[in-house]
Every structure is written in structure tokens, then in C-alpha cells.
């Protein structure tokens, strides 16, 4: 077994309150590496067919990578894999904290959870001991109180995963929290835990992990010390997207929010910053700890807000009051809701309200005009508890539009049921491919085309050549997510896949090259495509709302430019071909033979 791996998974059966260790064949670890790749293989082999995302037969996995637990920078993250309550298909959701390292030190490369507990409980993993503790007294509590309880009654420095009321109430955008403010946010993984009556997982370890060449790894880190001054504060992104006309504003009807300047941008966040925080083992503390210094939210302290939250609970709702966004961020984190989806849901509701599709009677008296931050703060807890008008919003934007009708689906901003994040594709057409084809739904982390279309010299408003660019960006991200290296720091640390391969070899003692790792990303992307096809997805699901394809932005460099269905279909078709799939996005027999899926050992539990 290579360094960095334990070669074992822990299977926890909530129905019977049992646990057992599973061996991962080395052949599988060699082919799929870890993280996203291993998650794809496990989902393919283990997920029963026709499973309801909120049914007891859904499986939820917590996975590590080969660098987890080592001093490799950017490796302090874990991955959740399950069937998504938002889309009904593949879900991968990443977060940070001590979970991955503690799991590795406890002796496992990952955790597989099946079944459903008879009543709310928590799973405590202490090396080889697995305890199932009655947690009915925690049910209904926010994520912060829950995690505080765990740290006071189990272990102060454990790795922990918790849900809040949103997960208990099965919202499609409920998240799983760790280290208080870190969230596996997208796609509703928190509701999968909630559907299983699983309130918390806590992991404490006594073991460790070894590296193949610790001296070279040490030198690598010391030689990059000066990077510690480069804090990749995500609020900086708002200035870029706002200038580029890419900042979702007023439910994606505009791409610029002039009131953001100085009010909810990096300068405003810096003014509110009282400290910084790093992920476990990372040398860049890129997360801000902020405090409201005056006003009605005085003394509120939180980690954040990050760019997506500033955009979706700020600009997208035309809220220009940073303390209110901070309060909304805090509420979402404690209630256990994804801030991106919450912002898109409220933005949709606001547009419906202003169009007269929703009356004040229907909103329970809440004045849902854009800019009314008090309405946002009133609505968030109602959503998490499915009370009043919040019950309607808790459906998520796709199902809200289905229920409301009246052509509202044209401005219901989602793909595959996952709400669109804060980069409007009309200001950079590459994101139109990304949002439509990424397997979990509209996702900005599987590839980030603004890196080349806005920060680089690629023309944002062309079709030609976009699909190969997006494919390359997706492969690079796939590798980072398979190794589980932070995709904020990773591109800065490693200029190429060859550099990543060399780094991996230093840590785990392997002989990888950039090319063979890139080949693996193609295998993984196609396997995940097969997963979604098995789940019933087709080309008809790789789509975008009418607003994105047929309306133009009103301001910014993209003003007056329309992507158009023809251009979109052309880019999408070219992406399929790049992957070795047919014109309906189905992997060809030729590519299946090439990737030798049928020759692999099958993992069973």
C-alpha cells in the first residue's frame, strides 16, 4: 500500500447500529486515486437503482484523498458523495475542517453510511470504536449549538459533521457543516443526513499518516512561504465580476450592482475583518473572521462572508447593507442552508412578487421587494422550518416555478435543480457549458471559465474553442478534487498536471505523470456521466433557463449580447465530442472499452 492510504473504508449501518471495515482493492486506489474518483467508483458499485434521495436506501459517503492528514498545503478538505435531493442524481460536495485528517488518523480512507436510524442519533468514531448515541435532545438545534455540544461532550478537537433544522426538514439545499462555519453546501447533502435521522458524525483519532519523502515535502512548503501573504480572499472576486458585468443582480436580470462598491465588496469586508482563519494544515489563512461594529447587528461575529454569499444574498437581492448580509450568512450557517441556493430562491421570490405573480397575502405579509433585507432575514428561518411562505421557498427554485407556473420557469435560475451560482454566463459564455453539463447541476467549482475569459485573454463572447477550454479546466479541477487539494490554492501552487503528479509522488511514493493523471480524470468524468444516465438523466437535462440563453444583460461588456440556443447547442455538442460521448451525451462503446470499467473489481458491502 502506498503512503497516504489506509486501504480501508468504514461502513456504518444506521438501521442496525453496526459498523465494519471494508478493504479497498489497491487496483481501485491506483485507478481512481481517492476523493472524487473513488467516490465515483463507490457510487457506481454501491448505490442501488431507483433509490429515492431521501429514502433509507440512499448511501452517503465521507471521503478523503491520498494527501489528507499530511502536511500538504490545501489538503484540509473532505468530500461528501450521495444521491442529490436537489437533482436526483450524482452529488459531490466539498468542505473543510478536521474531518478528513481525523478519519485518516482513525484508520480509514472514507466512511460509508447506509440505512436509517429509528430515532435521531449521532455517530462517534474513536479509532476502532463506533458508538451510536441518542441525539433526540439535539434534534431541532442549530448547527452551532450542535457542534458546541459535540466538542464539549466528545472531544474538543474532533472532526465533526452536523446538520441544522434545514437538514432535519429535508430542504433540497440543506448543507452539512463542519468546524462551525465550513459547509458542504450544494445539492442538499444535509437532507440526506436528516432523512437518516443522523444529526452528527464526530471522529477522534490516535493514529497518524506517513509520507514517502517528508524532507522534500518540507522543502516544498518552506520554499513557498512567501505565498502566505497572498490571501485568496474571495470578496476580491466581487470587484472583478461587477466590472465584467458578471455579478448576478436582481435575480440575474442585470450583471452590475453599482451600490456594491464600497458597501459589500472587498473594502467593506476588510473593514469588518478582525482576523483570519486557515483550513487544517494550510499555510494561507484565506478565510476572514468579521465583526459588525455598529448598528442593529452590532457585535455579530462570523467567518465570512465569501464571494458567493455577498453576491447571492447581496447583489442578487439588491441588498447593499453588509451587516444584513453577514446576519443572513450567519443564519444560513446555523440553520444549515446553502447560501447560494437560498439567495437564488429569495431572488426568484422577489421577482415573482414585483411582477405580481405572488401577492403579499401569499407571502404571509412579507414585503418581498428587492433590497428589503429585513424580508430576507425574516424568510430564512421560515424556509429552514418550512413554515408559512417559507414552506413554498423550501421547495427550491425549480419546484417553486413548477408550482407557480405563469412562465416563471423562464427566470427560475437553475440547471438540473441546482441553483445557478454567482457568475452570469452571459458575461462569459464558457460558464454556459459548465453549468449545463456538470453532473451535480449548475456548478462553478468543477470548472471556472472566468479564469480565462475575464482574467485571461480569451474572448468571453465567442463559441469557437470554448468546449476544449472547459474540458481542460474541468479535468484540472477533477484532479484537484480527486486528490482533495483546495481548488483555490491548488492552481497557485501547481502550474501543471506534471507538477501535481510530482507532488503526489513525493507524498505517497507513486510514479504518476501528468498525462496518466489527466487520463484518469477522463475516466472519472465519463464514469460520473454513466452514473447520471443510470439515474435517468439525458441530454434534455443539460440545459439552461431561458433568461440565460435568450435575454441579454442590460449593462457591462455583455450588454446586448445574446448567447442564443444555437450557439449553446453547438458548444454543448462540442463538449460531448471532446469527452468521447455521442451527440446525445452518452459515452460511446469505444470509450467504455478504452476505460475498461468492466474489468475492474466490484466493491460490495
Amino acid at each position, binding site marked *: 500500500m502506498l503512503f497516504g492510504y489506509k486501504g480501508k473504508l468504514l461502513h456504518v449501518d444506521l438501521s442496525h447500529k453496526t459498523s465494519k471495515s471494508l478493504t479497498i482493492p489497491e487496483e481501485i486506489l491506483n485507478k481512481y486515486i481517492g476523493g472524487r474518483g473513488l467516490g465515483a467508483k463507490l457510487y457506481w458499485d454501491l448505490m442501488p437503482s431507483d433509490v429515492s434521495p431521501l429514502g433509507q436506501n440512499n448511501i452517503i459517503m465521507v471521503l478523503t484523498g491520498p494527501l489528507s492528514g499530511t502536511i500538504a498545503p490545501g489538503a484540509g478538505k473532505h468530500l461528501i458523495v450521495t444521491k442529490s435531493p436537489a437533482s436526483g442524481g450524482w452529488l459531490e460536495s466539498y468542505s473543510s475542517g478536521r474531518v478528513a485528517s481525523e478519519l485518516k488518523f482513525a484508520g480509514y480512507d472514507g466512511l460509508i453510511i447506509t440505512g436509517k436510524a429509528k430515532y435521531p442519533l449521532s455517530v462517534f468514531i474513536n479509532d476502532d470504536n463506533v458508538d451510536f448515541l441518542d441525539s433526540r435532545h439535539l434534534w431541532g438545534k442549530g448547527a452551532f449549538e450542535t457542534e458546541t455540544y459535540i466538542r464539549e461532550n466528545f472531544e474538543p478537537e474532533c472532526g465533526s459533521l452536523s446538520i441544522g433544522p434545514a437538514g432535519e426538514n429535508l430542504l433540497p439545499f440543506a448543507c452539512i457543516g463542519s468546524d462551525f462555519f465550513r459547509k458542504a453546501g450544494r445539492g442538499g447533502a444535509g437532507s440526506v443526513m436528516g432523512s437518516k435521522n443522523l444529526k452528527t458524525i464526530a471522529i477522534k483519532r490516535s493514529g497518524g499518516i506517513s509520507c514517502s519523502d517528508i524532507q522534500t515535502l518540507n522543502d516544498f512548503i518552506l520554499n513557498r512561504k512567501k505565498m502566505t*501573504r*497572498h*490571501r*485568496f480572499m*474571495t*470578496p*476580491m*472576486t466581487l*470587484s*472583478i465580476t461587477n*466590472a*465584467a*458585468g458578471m455579478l448576478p443582480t436582481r435575480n440575474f436580470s442585470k450583471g452590475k450592482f453599482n451600490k456594491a462598491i*464600497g458597501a459589500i465588496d*472587498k*473594502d467593506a469586508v476588510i473593514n469588518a475583518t478582525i482576523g483570519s482563519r486557515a483550513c487544517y494544515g494550510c499555510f494561507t489563512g484565506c478565510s476572514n473572521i468579521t465583526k459588525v461594529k455598529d448598528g442593529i447587528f452590532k457585535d455579530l461575529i462570523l467567518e465570512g462572508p*465569501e*464571494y*458567493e454569499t455577498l453576491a447571492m444574498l447581496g447583489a442578487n437581492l439588491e441588498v447593499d447593507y453588509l451587516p444584513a448580509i453577514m446576519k443572513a450568512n450567519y443564519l444560513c450557517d446555523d440553520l444549515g442552508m446553502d447560501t447560494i441556493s437560498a439567495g437564488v430562491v429569495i431572488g426568484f421570490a422577489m421577482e415573482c412578487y414585483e411582477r405580481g405573480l405572488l401577492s403579499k397575502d401569499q407571502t404571509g405579509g412579507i414585503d418581498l421587494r428587492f433590497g428589503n433585507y429585513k424580508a430576507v432575514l425574516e424568510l430564512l428561518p421560515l424556509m429552514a422550518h418550512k413554515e408559512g411562505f417559507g414552506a413554498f421557498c423550501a421547495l427550491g427554485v425549480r419546484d417553486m416555478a413548477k408550482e407557480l407556473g405563469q412562465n416563471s420557469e423562464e427566470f427560475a435560475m437553475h440547471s438540473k435543480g441546482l441553483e445557478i451560482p454567482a*457568475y452570469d454566463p452571459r*458575461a462569459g459564455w464558457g460558464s454556459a457549458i459548465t453549468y449545463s453539463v456538470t453532473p451535480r447541476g449548475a456548478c*462553478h*467549482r468543477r470548472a*471556472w471559465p*472566468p*479564469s480565462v*475569459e*475575464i*482574467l*485571461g*485573454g*480569451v*474572448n*468571453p463572447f465567442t463559441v469557437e474553442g470554448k468546449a476544449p477550454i472547459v474540458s481542460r479546466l474541468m479535468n484540472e479541477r477533477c484532479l484537484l478534487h480527486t486528490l482533495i487539494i483546495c*481548488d*483555490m*490554492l491548488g*492552481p*497557485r501552487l501547481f502550474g501543471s498536471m506534471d507538477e501535481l503528479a510530482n507532488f503526489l509522488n513525493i507524498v505517497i511514493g507513486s510514479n504518476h505523470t501528468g498525462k496518466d493523471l489527466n487520463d484518469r480524470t477522463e475516466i472519472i468524468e465519463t464514469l460520473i456521466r454513466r452514473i447520471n444516465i443510470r439515474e435517468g438523466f439525458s441530454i434534455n437535462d443539460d440545459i439552461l433557463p431561458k433568461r440565460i440563453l435568450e435575454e441579454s444583460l442590460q449593462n*457591462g*461588456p455583455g450588454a446586448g449580447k445574446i448567447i442564443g440556443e444555437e450557439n449553446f447547442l453547438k458548444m454543448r455538442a462540442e463538449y460531448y465530442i471532446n469527452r468521447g460521448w455521442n451527440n446525445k451525451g452518452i459515452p460511446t462503446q469505444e470509450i467504455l472499452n478504452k476505460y475498461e470499467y468492466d474489468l475492474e473489481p466490484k466493491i460490495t458491502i
Partner: protein
Amino acid sequence: MKIKMTLIGSLNQRLQSSYEIIEGNDDNFTIQGALDELIERYGNPLAEELFKDGKFRKDLSLLINGRNILGLPKKFQTLLEDEDEIIISTYIAGG
């Protein structure tokens, strides 16, 4: 004409405020001219952050009214207009 220049990331530490207003005196004021004016204001420490071996650093991005300069035909010789906005950013990772 007045041009707003914003430096993002660690570059901003070289400025005295979150942005600078650069004034151009004639109709042939270019992006290069605005950069020259900014460097004249802040000297070699800023010049070293922005240029390497006489060329604009490859790890920086310069946007003019939201468009990357690399995508414009005249690049640094692009003529400016009153109230244009230039943003120079270090590496950002999205978020």
C-alpha cells in the same frame, strides 16, 4: 479626463487608498500612460509589483471597463475615455 484605477489583492497595499484617480491631459491618453502616471506617483516599489523585465507581469490581470486587456487589439495602447475604469488584480481564485 479622469480614470479610476483599482488595484486588487496584495497590490492594494502599495496604494494609499482603495483606488486612485488618474488624470489624463489629452485625447491620446492610453492605458500605458495611466500606468506610467500611477508608477510616477508610487515609485519603484509599485513598478516592481507590476512589471518584470520591462513587461507587465504575466500573473496579473488588467481589465479596462471589465474587458481583459489581452483581448483588445491595441492592448496597452488602447485609448482611454473619461470615467473609464482600470482594475489590476493579482491571482484570484473565484469563490
